[in-house]
C-alpha cells in the first residue's frame, strides 16, 4: 500500500462520515414530510367530516338555489281577470347610480355611459362622476339589456338600486276598475286602492270578475258609438244577473294606469260607478215592476195618455206621443212618460221609494272599489218626485247601480249586489263586504217573468228594435234623458242609454250602454235617442259575447212576449180605430 493509497483511504473515511450525516438528515427530512402529510390528513378529516358532515346538516342547497338572494323579495300581488289573464303585475326594475369616489377614469366611464344611454349628455355625466358626492343617480328604470351592458362595463363605481314598478299589460282596458298605484307601490284608486293591504301581503293573485275579452268588446262598441255621434263620454256595464259579478265595466274617455300622473281628470273620472246621472226611461222597468208587485196590476190595465199630465206647475208630456189610451204593455213598449207617471202615482210615494231603496238605487253601490258615487235623491221626496222618478228623472244613479237593479228584476226577483271579486272566499274577513247570507226576494218570480216579457216586447215591437240579435231573445229598454242645465232641462244635451238582457226567457246577462251627449247624425235621421245610439251598440256587444262565451242561440226562438200581444194594438188596428173615430 503506497502513501498515495493511504491518502485515498483517508478520503474514503471522510466520505463515509458525510454518508452517516446524510443518513441522519434523511431521517429528519422524512419525519418533517410525514408530519406535514399527517397535517394534510387531519385537515381533510376536519373539512370533510367535522365541517362537511357534522356541521353542514340541513343547509343543503341545490346548484340553482345558491345564486338566489337570501330572502325572496316580496312583491305586490298580481291582479288577474276571471280567466287568469294578467291585468296588473309588479316588476323589478333597476336604476343606476354611481359612487364618484370609486370611478377610475371618469372621462372613459362617462363615454361608456353615453354609448349605452344615448339620451344622456356627456358633460352632465362627467360632471356627476367628478363630483364630491358619494351617490349620484345616472339613470332610472333601466331595461334588462341596458342593465346587462352596465354589468359588462364592470365598473366598481356603478351600482343598481332595484325598485318595483306596477305595470298594466292591457293599458287603458279596465283602467278605471283596476285603478293605479303610486311610485311607492301604494294603491291610489280602483281595486289597487281598495285591496291595497291584501295585494301588499298576498302571494296569490287577486282574481277579478272582469273578462278582458268582454271588456274589450264593450269598450270598442261604446267608443264606436261615441265617435259616430261625437259624444263627450260613455259608460257601460256587463253583469251576470245571477250573482252580480261584473264582466266588464267601461268608462270613456279612459286612461292608461301607467300614465296616471299625466292623465286628464276627465279621463280619470269613473263614469260607471262614480258618476251619477238621471238615466231616464230605463227607470220605467222599476216603476212598472213596482206596480205589478205592489198593486197587483195586470196587463190589461189602461192609462190615458191623450193629454199631458198636469200636477201643480209641472207638466209631464210624452216623447213618442201615442195620444190614445194605452194598455200597460203599450205604455212600456212605447215608453210613455205619462203612463209611467200614472203608474208611480198608483204605487204611491212610500211604495215606490221603498221599492227603489230595496233595489239599491237610493244608496251608494256596495261594489269593491272606492270610486262609488252617492245617488242624488230628492230631499224632501214630494209626491211630484214620485211621478218623475217613475220615468227616471229627479233621481240620479250610477250606471252600475242601474245595471244591478235591472239584474235583480230579471233574474227571478232576487236581490243581487254588484261585485268585482271572483272568489270572495279567498279574501280575508277584513275585505269581505257585507254580503246577504241568503237570497233576498224583491219581486215574485211571476212579476219577474212579466218584466222579461215586457222587455222582450220592447225589442220586438217597441223602441228597442235595433238591439235585437236573432236567436238570443234580447230584451231591453231604451232611455233618453235630457241633462239638467241652467234653468231646467236641456233638450239638446242628452244621456242616451239602453239596457239589454239576454236571453230573455232565462236571462244571464245585463248589458248596459250609456252615451253622454251624443249628436244626431244623418244616418239616424238626426236622432240621438237611446234606441238609435245605444241599442245598436248593445246588439253588437251581445253578438260578440255570444261567440266569445260560446253561448248557443235559444232553440226555436220562443216568442215569450206572445201572450202580451193581445194587449197591444197593431198599427192597422190603430188606423182602423182612428177611422172609426172620425165618423
Amino acid at each position, binding site marked *: 500500500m503506497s502513501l498515495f493509497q493511504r491518502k485515498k483511504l483517508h478520503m474514503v473515511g471522510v466520505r463515509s462520515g*458525510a454518508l452517516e450525516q446524510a443518513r441522519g438528515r434523511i431521517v429528519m427530512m422524512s419525519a418533517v414530510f410525514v408530519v406535514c402529510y399527517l397535517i394534510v*390528513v387531519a385537515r*381533510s378529516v376536519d373539512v370533510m367530516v367535522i*365541517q*362537511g*358532515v357534522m356541521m353542514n346538516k340541513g343547509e343543503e342547497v341545490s346548484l340553482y338555489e345558491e345564486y338566489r338572494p337570501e330572502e325572496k323579495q316580496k312583491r305586490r300581488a298580481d291582479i288577474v281577470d276571471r280567466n287568469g289573464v294578467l291585468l296588473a303585475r309588479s316588476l323589478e326594475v333597476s336604476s343606476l347610480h354611481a359612487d364618484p369616489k370609486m370611478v377610475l377614469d371618469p372621462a372613459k366611464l362617462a363615454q361608456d355611459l353615453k354609448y349605452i344611454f344615448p339620451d344622456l349628455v356627456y358633460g352632465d355625466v362627467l360632471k356627476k362622476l367628478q363630483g364630491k358626492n358619494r351617490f349620484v343617480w345616472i339613470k332610472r328604470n333601466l331595461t334588462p339589456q341596458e342593465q346587462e351592458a352596465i354589468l359588462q362595463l364592470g365598473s366598481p363605481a356603478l351600482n343598481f338600486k332595484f325598485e318595483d314598478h306596477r305595470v298594466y299589460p292591457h293599458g287603458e282596458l279596465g283602467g278605471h276598475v283596476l285603478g293605479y298605484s303610486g311610485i311607492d307601490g301604494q294603491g291610489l284608486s280602483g281595486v289597487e286602492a281598495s285591496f291595497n293591504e291584501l295585494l301588499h301581503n298576498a302571494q296569490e293573485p287577486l282574481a277579478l270578475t272582469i273578462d278582458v275579452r268582454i271588456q274589450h268588446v264593450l269598450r270598442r262598441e261604446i267608443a264606436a258609438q261615441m265617435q259616430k255621434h261625437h259624444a263627450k263620454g260613455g259608460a257601460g256595464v256587463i253583469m251576470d244577473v245571477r250573482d252580480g259579478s261584473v264582466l266588464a265595466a267601461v268608462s270613456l274617455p279612459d286612461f292608461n294606469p301607467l300614465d296616471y300622473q299625466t292623465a286628464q281628470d276627465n279621463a280619470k273620472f269613473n263614469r260607471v260607478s262614480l258618476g251619477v246621472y238621471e238615466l231616464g226611461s230605463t227607470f220605467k222597468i222599476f216603476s212598472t215592476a213596482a206596480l205589478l208587485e205592489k198593486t197587483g196590476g195586470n196587463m190589461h190595465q189602461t192609462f190615458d195618455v191623450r193629454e199631458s199630465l198636469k200636477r201643480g206647475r209641472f207638466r209631464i208630456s210624452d216623447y213618442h206621443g201615442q195620444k190614445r189610451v194605452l194598455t200597460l204593455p203599450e205604455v212600456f213598449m212605447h215608453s210613455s212618460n205619462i203612463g209611467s207617471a200614472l203608474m208611480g202615482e198608483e204605487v204611491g210615494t212610500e211604495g215606490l221609494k221603498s221599492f227603489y231603496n230595496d233595489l239599491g238605487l237610493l244608496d251608494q253601490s256596495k261594489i269593491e272599489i272606492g270610486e262609488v258615487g252617492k245617488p242624488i235623491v230628492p230631499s224632501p221626496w214630494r209626491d211630484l218626485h214620485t211621478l218623475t222618478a217613475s220615468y227616471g228623472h229627479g233621481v240620479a244613479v250610477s250606471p252600475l247601480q242601474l245595471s244591478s237593479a235591472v239584474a235583480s228584476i230579471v233574474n227571478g226577483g232576487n236581490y243581487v249586489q254588484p261585485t268585482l271579486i271572483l272568489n270572495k272566499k279567498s279574501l280575508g274577513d277584513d275585505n269581505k263586504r257585507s254580503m246577504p247570507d241568503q237570497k233576498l226576494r224583491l219581486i215574485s218570480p211571476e212579476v219577474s217573468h212579466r218584466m222579461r216579457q215586457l222587455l222582450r216586447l220592447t225589442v220586438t215591437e217597441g223602441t228597442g228594435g235595433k238591439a235585437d240579435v236573432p236567436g238570443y231573445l234580447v230584451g231591453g229598454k231604451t232611455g233618453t234623458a235630457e241633462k239638467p242645465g241652467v234653468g231646467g232641462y236641456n233638450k239638446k244635451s242628452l244621456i242616451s242609454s239602453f239596457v239589454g238582457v239576454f236571453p230573455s226567457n232565462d236571462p244571464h246577462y245585463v248589458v248596459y250602454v250609456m252615451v253622454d251627449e251624443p249628436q244626431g247624425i244623418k244616418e239616424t235621421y238626426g236622432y240621438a235617442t237611446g234606441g238609435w245610439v245605444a241599442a245598436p251598440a248593445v246588439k253588437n256587444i251581445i253578438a260578440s259575447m255570444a261567440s266569445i262565451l260560446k253561448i248557443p242561440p235559444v232553440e226555436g226562438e220562443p216568442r215569450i212576449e206572445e201572450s202580451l200581444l193581445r194587449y197591444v194594438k197593431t198599427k192597422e188596428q190603430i188606423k182602423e180605430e182612428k177611422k172609426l173615430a172620425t165618423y
Partner: protein
Amino acid sequence: MGLFSRHFSRTSQSITARWWWTVDRAMLAFIFVLYIIGAFMIATASPSVAIRIGAYEYLFLIKHFIVLLPSIIVMLVISLFDVDTLRRASMIAFVGCIVLLIYTLFFGLEVKGAKRWIDLPFFSLQPSEFAKPAFIVVTAWLMARYKENSQFKGHYYAWGLFLFLIALLLLQPDLGMTFVVTVSFFSVMFLAGLPFRYVFILAGLGVTAFVLIYMSFSHVQSRVDRFLNPESGDTYQIEKSLDAFKNGGITGTGPGQGEVKLRIPDAHADFIFSVAAEEFGLFFIITLIGIYGYIFVRGFNRIMDSDNLFIILSVGGLLTMFALQALVHMGSALHIVPTKGMTLPLISYGGSSLLSMSMVMGMILALTRKQRKRGISKGGLTIREIGGEKL
C-alpha cells in the same frame, strides 16, 4: 422458457432482466396506480372545464392520454439508465434547459402575464419543468464531488447555478417553480451537511425573501392576504374548493357526480385534489395522501442503504421536489397554505408537468436500483476510487 424467461429471469444478464431484479418494483407499482387514478380524475374533472371554455368536451382527456403514454415510456427508459449515464444525461439536459429558458424570456408564449412556455405545433413546452430535475441532479453531483474531494469547489458552482436559475425563473415570473427549486436545492445542501447554523440563517433569509416577494408582486400579495384573511377579497377558488371537500364528506358523491367541481376553475389541474375529495370522499383522499407518503418514505428508505453520496443527494432532492409539490397542491386545496397554482404529481392535467414528473420518477427508479456491491463491506469503509469511477 420463451420470451419472458429470456428477458426477466433472475440469472439473465440482459438489460431488462437486470432492471427487473434491481428496480424498486413496489414504487413502480404505486407510480402506475397514480397514473390510473390520474386518468380517472381527468376524465371526471376536465369535461366541465372544457365546456366552460367552449372547447370539445373530451379535449383535455384526449390530450392527457396523448402525453400519458410517452410519459410512461420515458419513465421506463430513464429507469433503465445506470447512474453515470443518468448523471451525464442530466448535465446535458440542464444545459439545454438553460438555453431554452433564456429563449423563453425573449420568444416565449405569454399567458396571464407570465412568459413560461415555448409554443410548439401541438403543445406548449415549459422548459422550467425539465430544468428542475436536471438541476437537482447536477447540484447533487457537484456537492458529492465536493464532499469527496474538497479541492473541487463544487458548492460554489452549485450556489452559482442556483442563483442563475432562480434569476431566470423570477424573470418569467414563476414563483411556484422558484419555490420548488429553492426548497429542493436546500434539501440537497442540507443532506450534503449544511451546518445547522446556516440552515437557520437561510431560513431567516427565506422569510425575508418571502416578505420582499410579497411586497413586490401584487398577485402574490393578494393571494397571501386572502389566505390570512378570507374576508378580504375574492376567495372564490378556495371557497369552492372547500365546498367540494364538505360536499364530498366521508363517502363522496360518486364518480362524475360532483356539483361543486363544475364551478372550480382549473378543476382538472390546480384543484384536481378537490374534485377527488368531492367525488370519492375521505377514505380515498387519505389513501391518496398515503400513496404519496409511501412513495417518498420508501424512496428515502431505499437510499439509507446506499453508500453513494451522489445517489443520496440526488434522490433526496428529487423526492423532496415530488413530495413538496404534492404537499403544496393538497395544502392549497385545503386552505392550509396560500393558493399556489401547482399540479398534483402524476395526476393533474398538464403536458409538461406530467412528462417532467415521469422523468423524475424514472430518475428516482434508476438511482434507487440495487447497486452491485463492489467494496468489502456495506457502508463504512470501502475501497474504491473517488467520484464513483470503477476500480
